[in-house]
């Protein structure tokens, strides 16, 4: 899911060629983002758009040749003036009289020409990894430049930049090229993105643009273009850029009298690989041109400030909200003077509002992670590792919101319960850390699903390695790390490759709070009264079927409903209560002949109370619900979502340790299998290990040490 949808998407047409653009936001100075097309397109700005559009009117353009724009044939269509005229047409169509233009690589000369020829329209130019003939490029470009039009037999490496080769095996070029352009370790997602965007165009378009490219042909022409620029410029260039050496950026900054920001260790795609830094550089540049208005307001003397914490609760699944509220209650008992604000999104906010907690107004700017996860799922299937990877732009967008909030300087403490964005980007940008930071999680280590093969094992190991390197290099970023569970809950696996075992590493780097249920399960002697209150009778065997708050659960509900007739025959006292949750309309489920033993309900208030007194529950493999059932000592069947490594490995391991629940395989469980399992387990007396009830207090004690 995109972190930010455009407010307007349209095309301009020049000489029959359509060029697409998108507009984000409508306040503040104009910002035109031009990617290096056709090998890239406008989605390459995804890490910048959500942040910048909160401060500027952002227009992204898909230059002709890729994305939703036309791919005209022939090099003349990409020749001198065409790209510049497209950009100008977009500015006109949007009605932007002036804009700061941000361009990447060989789009930089287009931006410079736009600025030179329309000085009244361009108030500044940001050149990222500029490609312009101001300095000699690396030696590896010599052969492809010289032999571009030759028929070279089986070229390799940079030699693949060859018109004949592209016609034979174009995909091999972006696969090689972007590997070279992302020398930073742990860049798998940026690499996949760049290659996939390059594959959205075709070799003929690539050849036409390359042969028609509107760029100064030599140093003199490039220098003349630079010297004609009157507006402020900012050049952002990585020292490890193998496409365009940093010397070009240095020359460009010097000749235009601009500012040079060198990114040490960065490659050719800093907008993708270092989005936080690039966002901040661009905003600072725009502010310096447009003049950020002096803001009034209140500043409070340091000693007069209340102690404040900002709490971030992962919105992926509802479970975190309840446990985090429980932790805060305990924390306030220990530190009554502490004020807690929440940076939170739906559905966490609904729990917080009910509890009367204070939600920071910037929460409204957050892109919704829960909706992203729903968009990533289909029939009882959620590849949660890949879904997290594809959530990259949402994490950047939300981190930028978070960072603006903490930079006001009011928080002594940041508590992130699986706030991936904060933990990741503070390690990537350690100079941005504000306040003490508590990291909480209930699992450590990405694990590959078996059917993902070697590649998925490589990817999960790479993500784990990055996390381990983060912690090793910057132990000061996590002031406390709390594992919500016990050492025995940790899976016996390794992080992959040559990496250490997950358990030994986690024990060395975390404190353990035990499990945090967020509620106290009823004593056995309280159960009859609760059952009576909820309308469950002694002569019936109550089976609750629930799938949590997301829309992922429909397929499981349908299967369990289909199992009802047989289950009822096997267990005549069966009363099945199907709870659809807020995202599934109960009326949309297939209806069986009306039967007093089967009911379908939408939202059920305090579902955990029903679960804690039922005779059997049928649920997904999420940690919160299954552990609630374990804590209440209920028998239950759980179906981990397919491809969900956390449910299939981490949660299952933990439940096995408690001896709780029976794991069911969704794919092989037909209604008959489910009915038999219901009959087997309903009303079971379970004697598994007790779930601790002091987790919230233990976590709060660990946090309170920092206050």
């Amino acid at each position, binding site marked *: 899911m995109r972190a930010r949808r455009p407010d307007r998407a349209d095309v301009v047409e020049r000489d029959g060629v359509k060029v697409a653009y998108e507009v984000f936001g409508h306040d503040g100075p104009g910002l035109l983002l031009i990617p290096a097309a056709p090998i890239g397109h406008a989605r390459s700005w995804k890490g910048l758009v959500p942040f910048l559009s909160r401060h500027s009117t952002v227009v992204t353009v898909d230059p002709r040749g890729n994305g939703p724009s036309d791919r005209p044939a022939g090099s003349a269509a990409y020749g001198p003036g065409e790209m510049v005229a497209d950009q100008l047409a977009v500015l006109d169509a949007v009605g932007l009289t002036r804009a700061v233009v941000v361009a990447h690589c060989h789009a930089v000369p287009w931006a410079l020409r736009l600025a030179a020829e329309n000085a009244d329209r361009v108030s500044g130019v940001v050149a990222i990894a500029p490609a312009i003939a101001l300095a000699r490029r690396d030696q590896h470009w010599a052969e492809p430049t010289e032999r571009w039009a030759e028929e070279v037999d089986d070229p390799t490496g940079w030699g693949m930049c060859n018109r004949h080769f592209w016609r034979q095996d174009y995909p091999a070029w972006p696969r090689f090229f972007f590997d070279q352009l992302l020398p930073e370790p742990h860049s798998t997602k940026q690499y996949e993105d760049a290659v996939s965007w390059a594959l959205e165009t075709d070799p003929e378009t690539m050849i036409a643009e390359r042969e028609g490219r509107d760029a100064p042909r030599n140093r003199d022409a490039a220098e003349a273009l630079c010297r004609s620029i009157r507006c402020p410029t900012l050049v952002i260039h990585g020292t490890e850029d193998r496409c365009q050496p940093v010397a070009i950026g240095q020359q460009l900054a010097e000749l235009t009298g601009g500012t040079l920001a060198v990114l040490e260790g960065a490659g050719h795609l800093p907008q993708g690989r270092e989005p936080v830094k690039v966002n901040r550089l661009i905003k600072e540049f725009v502010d310096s041109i447009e003049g950020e208005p002096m803001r009034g307001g*209140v500043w409070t003397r340091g000693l007069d400030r209340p102690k404040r914490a900002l709490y971030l609760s992962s919105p992926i699944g509802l479970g975190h909200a309840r446990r985090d509220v429980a932790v805060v209650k305990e924390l306030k008992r220990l530190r009554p003077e502490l004020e807690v604000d929440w940076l939170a999104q739906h559905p966490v906010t609904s729990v917080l509002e009910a509890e009367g907690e204070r939600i920071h107004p910037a929460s409204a700017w957050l892109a919704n992670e829960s909706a992203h996860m729903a968009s990533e799922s289909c029939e009882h299937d959620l590849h949660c590792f890949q879904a997290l990877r594809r959530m990259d732009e949402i994490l950047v967008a939300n981190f930028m919101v978070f960072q603006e909030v903490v930079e006001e300087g009011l928080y002594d403490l940041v508590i992130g319960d699986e706030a991936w964005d904060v933990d990741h980007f503070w390690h990537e940008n350690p100079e941005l850390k504000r306040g003490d930071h508590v990291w909480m999680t209930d699992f450590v280590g990405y694990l590959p699903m078996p059917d993902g093969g070697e590649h998925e094992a490589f990817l999960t190991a790479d993500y784990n390695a990055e996390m381990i390197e983060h912690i090793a290099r910057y132990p000061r970023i996590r002031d406390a790390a709390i594992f919500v569970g016990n050492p025995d809950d940790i899976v016996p696996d390794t992080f992959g490759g040559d990496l250490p075992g997950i358990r030994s590493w986690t024990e060395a780097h975390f404190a353990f709070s035990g499990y945090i249920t967020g509620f106290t399960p009823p004593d056995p002697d309280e159960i009859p009264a609760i059952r009576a209150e909820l309308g469950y009778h002694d002569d019936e065997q109550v089976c609750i079927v629930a799938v949590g708050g997301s829309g992922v659960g429909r397929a499981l509900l349908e299967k369990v409903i289909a199992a009802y007739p047989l289950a009822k025959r096997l267990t005549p006292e069966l009363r099945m209560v199907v709870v659809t949750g807020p995202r599934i309309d109960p009326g949309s489920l297939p209806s069986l002949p009306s039967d007093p033993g089967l009911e379908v309900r939408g939202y059920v208030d305090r579902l955990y109370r029903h679960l804690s007194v039922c005779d059997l529950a049928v649920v997904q493999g999420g940690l919160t619900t299954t552990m609630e059932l374990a804590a209440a000592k209920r028998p239950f069947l759980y179906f981990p979502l397919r491809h969900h490594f956390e449910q299939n490995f981490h949660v299952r391991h933990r439940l096995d340790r408690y001896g709780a629940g029976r794991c069911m395989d969704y794919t092989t469980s037909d209604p008959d299998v489910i009915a038999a399992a219901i009959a087997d387990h309903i009303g079971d007396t379970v004697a598994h290990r007790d779930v601790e009830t002091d987790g919230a207090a233990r976590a709060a004690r660990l946090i309170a040490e920092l206050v």
Partner: protein
Amino acid sequence: MRAVAADAEGSFTRDGVTVHYARHGSGTPTVVLLPTWSLVHSRHWKFQVPYLARHFTVLTFDGRGSGRSDRPASPASYSAAEFAADALAVMDATETERAVLVSVSRGALWSLQLCAEHPERVAGAIFIAPTVPFALPPLERVVLQRFDEVVEDPAGWEKYNAHHWKADYRDFVEFFAGRMFTEPHSTKQHEDAVGWALETDPATLIATQYGLDHCTPQAIGRLAAATRCPVLVIHGSDDAVRIHAQGASLAERTGGTLVTLEGSGHFPHTRDPVRVNLLIRQFVEGVGR
């Protein structure tokens, strides 16, 4: 030891009154840190000068009646117009076309005069804890202050009194410094203010008091209304010399930005120098662009 030495110092004499000024730094634009009431001299800017001088040209001068400047006897020498004319003379002497003015407390009166009557010389103005007659001073001051009457054993604001100044100037200075710094742990700022105040004398201060008779609400209101340049007002919520509503009113009348310093007293530039320095720099960079 001073954190930085002046890059240039000088003096001029206007109508027989010699005024001493200093320049620090050479950046653009130029910032004039105006004198306040002659109770203290230009050293009260000591936390601003080193920082601002790394970015801008900073001009300071000892207000007539304080520091190394002369202490003329007549009240007429201490009118707002005279202080404003001194500021222009400093700018002329340093060949400064235009500057951002920063004032504290009573300095607001000369600053407003320059903003309204010499707009071509003023790029912007910052008013810290301004003394402007748009709202009553703190209640205890309204009730107790009787400047000309003879008060036996004065207490509190009764000490703001010409007879008491002559009788026990030090006692007044200690009292007044106590009202300037209501923040806990302000001993050094308090000592500094007392020390600077003891460098002038009660007769001079009495003259400065009568010199302001012309600063009526109507007159200052006209100056505020005529001010067109960007304005920033910084006022502490706990200012016990000039209340926050005075600053808020000035911000409103000049269309300026108001920054409230929660918990701060009357001299926040000495008590919370970091925040005030950052605010000044941000404002100056905004108007200097």
